[in-house]
């Protein structure tokens, strides 16, 4: 009934690795790292904890790069799709690293931490590809330094309705001065920390960056304060419920930000932007496909790779194939199957009935607006 995936690759470990193992987490390979997919109480309990109280996630595997200097803004503008000249100190912006054709190499968060200082957070699984893209550009630019701080820091996300209260309680109320999508510094339980009020769950909360040697201490302090340790399994469901895309599933180099519905995060007017011309052209043409969210009506759970067909009462075959599922799961919060996928533009309107081919079983679904879940 079950098969083991062989793992020949030597996996990297975050500074919290032994803490996860001691907590009896199930560990899996993710983006080249050995990461907790769930802890003892299971994915559903973790999801409920994040939606109702607060959960903590080890996100130390995500790439963290610091850029500093008078040329940093200009350099970052060559490969990021954020309008950096208007990004004020202490603010963050979701954006993309796109190639010359506008295809998405990675999605990222960029923060301006000071006048001439930036923090860039990239996906763990794309870190190597991103660096291969960025490194040749460095040779052509001047006036800045780049420092990869992934290994010398730990990053812990605390997310949920009690997250801000917990961090406030550990920082003399300093944390809540940092508003949504902003970044600042605070002392949390005696540990000097950088706090970004962002996340990947649809809940309020922080992503807390501390020096690597303080990672375990922070994790334990947050657990003692009532946050529930949560793994990648819960994180994947939470982000899907919140309508947030996952690179590798919903975004790739074969997809551009406009067909993904994220054109508002694809600024293309930076004069030195590598992807600028392509993104401008894509912004002016209607995409042939669109990323949509859908809810299952019939019994079944959508999964990545399943085909999407036009709603009909006849056969499910090539003639009525209109798209493919890129993410899908059972949502405990909504108590049903939900998914995201690309469908032909003309079939992408909200309310459109579709058929998901669940391994030979046609199951009815309906296109709905995302997010599936919005915090109250």
């Amino acid at each position, binding site marked *: *009934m079950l098969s083991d995936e062989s793992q020949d690759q030597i996996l990297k470990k975050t500074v919290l690795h032994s803490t996860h193992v001691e907590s009896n987490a199930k560990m899996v390979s993710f983006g080249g790292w050995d990461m907790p997919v769930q802890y003892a109480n299971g*994915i559903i309990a973790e999801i409920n904890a994040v939606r109702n109280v607060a959960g903590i996630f080890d996100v130390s595997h995500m790439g963290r790069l610091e850029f500093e200097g008078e040329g940093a803004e200009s350099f970052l503008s060559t490969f990021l799709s954020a309008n950096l000249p208007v990004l004020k100190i202490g603010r963050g912006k979701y954006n993309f690293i796109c190639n010359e054709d506008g295809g998405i190499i990675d999605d990222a968060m960029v923060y301006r931490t000071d006048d001439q200082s930036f923090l860039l957070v990239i996906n763990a699984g794309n870190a190597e590809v991103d660096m291969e893209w960025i490194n040749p550009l460095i040779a052509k630019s001047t006036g800045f330094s780049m420092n990869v701080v992934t290994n010398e820091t730990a990053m812990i996300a605390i997310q949920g309705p009690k997250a801000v209260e917990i961090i406030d309680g550990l920082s003399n109320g300093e944390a809540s001065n940092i508003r949504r999508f902003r970044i600042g510094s605070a002392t949390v339980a005696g540990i000097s920390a950088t706090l970004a009020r962002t996340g990947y769950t649809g809940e309020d909360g922080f992503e807390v960056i501390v020096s690597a040697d303080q990672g375990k201490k922070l994790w334990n302090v947050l657990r003692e304060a009532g946050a529930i340790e949560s793994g990648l399994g819960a994180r994947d469901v939470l982000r899907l419920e919140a309508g947030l895309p996952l690179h590798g599933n919903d975004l790739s180099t074969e997809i551009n930000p406009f067909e993904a519905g994220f054109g508002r995060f694809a600024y293309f007017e930076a004069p030195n932007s590598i992807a600028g011309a392509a993104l401008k052209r894509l912004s002016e043409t209607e995409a042939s496909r669109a990323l949509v969210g859908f809810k299952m009506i019939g019994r079944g759970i959508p999964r990545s790779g399943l085909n999407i067909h036009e709603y009909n009462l006849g056969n499910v075959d090539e003639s009525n194939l209109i798209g493919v599922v890129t993410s899908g*799961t059972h949502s405990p919060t909504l108590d049903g199957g939900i998914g995201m996928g690309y469908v032909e533009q003309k079939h992408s309107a909200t309310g459109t009935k579709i058929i998901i081919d669940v391994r030979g079983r046609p199951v009815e679904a309906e296109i709905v607006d995302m997010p599936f879940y919005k915090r109250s």
Partner: protein
Amino acid sequence: MYPDDLKYSKEHEWVRMNGNIAEIGVTVFAQESLGDVVFVDLPDVGRDVAQFAKFGEIESVKAVSDLFSPVGGKIVEVNAAATDSPEVVNEEPYGTGWLIKVELADASQLHDLMDSATYQATLE
């Protein structure tokens, strides 16, 4: 964890015999490996299933797995509780979380299955 009165398959299903009726479910090892079970798809009553053939699917939050029948025969009952409330498979895999009952076609098929001690040895 692995009751002595059951027979086990290498695919991590169990069989409990009552006369010539085989009650079938998944083992503790299977439900723990899967994690939270959120969907169970079972066949219609009256269908025949061959020994070791697929009879349904079980899904956790993360993954889909096929269910294989440890014995062959006619499916005489399916557990609506498992399809309506899949968490019973985690909670009581040998009790209310059973999946199907099969009218055993050939009793000698039971010899192809393992006893509790042999099955547990395969898990180590």
